[in-house]
């Protein structure tokens, strides 16, 4: 079985400050990791993903996440946040099981509130 833990339900941060949203996962097999963002009254959008290769992945709007296998983590970071980054962020994991459907498990989400 796989699971995802997002350690913070809410993260307030001042505009232009750095932020880290934490995500830990558990799985007995190889994993694929995702971060999604949900702006108010909208669906989720894929922000970035780790499938293989370089453990550091980046999004087009300045976020990055690093896959750390030894710590089973996939924390999301941004060096300087903007008001428009205010949203809810979901970490998700999928495992490489042989045969059948590869289920995606979502965390419960972290609300990022950027304060002017």
């Amino acid at each position: 079985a796989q699971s995802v833990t997002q350690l913070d339900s809410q993260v307030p941060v001042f505009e232009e400050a750095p932020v880290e949203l934490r995500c830990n996962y558990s799985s007995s097999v190889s994993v694929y990791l995702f971060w999604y963002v949900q702006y108010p009254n909208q669906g989720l959008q894929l922000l970035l993903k780790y499938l293989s290769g370089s453990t550091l992945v980046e999004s087009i709007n300045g976020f990055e996440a690093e896959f750390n296998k030894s710590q089973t983590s996939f924390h999301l970071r941004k060096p300087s946040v903007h008001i428009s980054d205010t949203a809810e962020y979901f970490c998700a994991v999928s495992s490489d099981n042989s045969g059948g459907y590869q289920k995606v498990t979502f965390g419960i989400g972290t609300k990022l509130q950027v304060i002017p």
Partner: protein
Amino acid sequence: DVKVTQSSRYLVKRTGEKVFLECVQDMDHENMFWYRQDPGLGLRLIYFSYDVKMKEKGDIPEGYSVSREKKERFSLILESASTNQTSMYLCASSTQFPYGYTFGSGTRLTVV
């Protein structure tokens, strides 16, 4: 741009009504999913489908059914709506695993 369209943004229904939530994708994706999203619980998978006329139960299928008669359309059916089904419902689609989901904008359903 790829798109998943959910037919209603907001819906109010009475207890006991049969409710249909429609989802259409224009990306020729094989896989489609229905999730419900509740505060503090995140996203929970209700049903999914990886081919036309195929369906599989997710984690919380009770009280729901689905229909996938065409590749682009995946419908969620609440057979007899109850107040505990008040929630945000999200449809998603994907191509081959594990390349991420495309979500619709969601339907906020209130059952009174």
